[in-house]
């Protein structure tokens, strides 16, 4: 037999039982959170981006419903579930004090869903402790990138399941 055909068949025989994540449409797990200080409003504005299918899966894994986001059959209370999930998984301590997050809304960003959150009454920002546990129980290699824009300073942290909390100083 032709060796090309032979090795082709060998690979098929060995690998066929292992279905990978490739079929889900993307293969690497990541979310992006942008934190921007708005000094006019004394507020931190957050934009959290997740792949929509990941977000739906995470909420379902916690016992939530099928949200079917951005379809005609979208769950009527999807904002409540999305907001609840995000605010339970993301925590902020600003200058030593834990600050509550307010969920404002969401937008469709193609394969991703962008969610908007706010932290009010933020007059100064010197140290921020951020905890981001989005999707880490679902995917071993989840990376959650947090980008800060405080004044003219831009800082980044990459959080994972092992290191899901970090402190940034400005």
């Amino acid at each position, binding site marked *: 037999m032709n060796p090309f055909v032979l090795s082709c068949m060998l*690979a098929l025989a060995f690998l066929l039982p292992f279905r990978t994540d*490739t079929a889900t449409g993307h293969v*690497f797990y990541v979310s992006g959170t942008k934190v921007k200080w708005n000094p006019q409003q004394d507020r931190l504005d957050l934009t959290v981006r997740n792949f929509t299918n990941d977000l739906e899966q995470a909420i379902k894994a916690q016992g939530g419903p099928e949200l079917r986001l951005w379809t005609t059959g979208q769950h009527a209370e999807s904002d409540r579930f999305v907001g609840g999930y995000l605010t339970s998984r993301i925590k902020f301590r600003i200058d030593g004090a834990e600050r509550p997050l307010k969920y404002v809304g969401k937008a469709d960003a193609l394969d*991703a869903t962008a969610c908007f959150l706010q932290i009010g009454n933020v007059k100064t920002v010197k140290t921020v402790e951020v905890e981001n546990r989005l999707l880490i129980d679902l995917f071993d290699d989840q990376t959650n*990138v947090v980008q800060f824009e405080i004044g003219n300073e831009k800082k980044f942290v990459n959080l994972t399941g092992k290191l899901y909390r970090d402190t940034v100083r400005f």
Partner: protein
Amino acid sequence: MSEFETYLRLGFSHITDLGAYDHIVFIIAVCAVYELWQWQSMLMLVTAFTVGHSITLGLATAGFMLIPTEIVEFLIPVTIFVTCLLNVIKSPNEYRRKKVRFNYPLTLFFGLIHGNGFSNYLRALLGQEESILMPLFSFNIGLEIGQLMIVSLVMAGSTLVVYGFKASHRSWTIFISGAAAGISVILMTQTAFW
């Protein structure tokens, strides 16, 4: 961490992630016809691939939807299969000629397809209002470093087989291409979008 380092790390871990082996298998297939002394050709090819995916990555991250995700995920293994088939049906001399390098434009074109796959990933991180230049640039440097690492490993394998076990390089090419083609068939069955 700086913006550059953040996206560089993401690019590197994206291409070297074993859970997302489609890009790795493609690079392996591209390199299977070359020997260590042809490292310049390989460097050029990997760079052609990077140029290809940088173009689509840039366009797609800037908001131009090029090909729907489910079709891209199917086309990626198709590019692997075609590369493997060419490795086997074309004579090794055709890859050695200085002038006829049909695989450069082909690899660049395949890079365009793979770039669609990367873009879905990067778009989840970046809003369209953001400046995408720096993240894109650093992400691509990370991808390129990862690709070169894969190339080095393939070369180490081929050197071991050819010089260590005294096998012919042609056998190595056929063995690797066959295995990669087999993997690509599995990926095609998983990503069939119809």
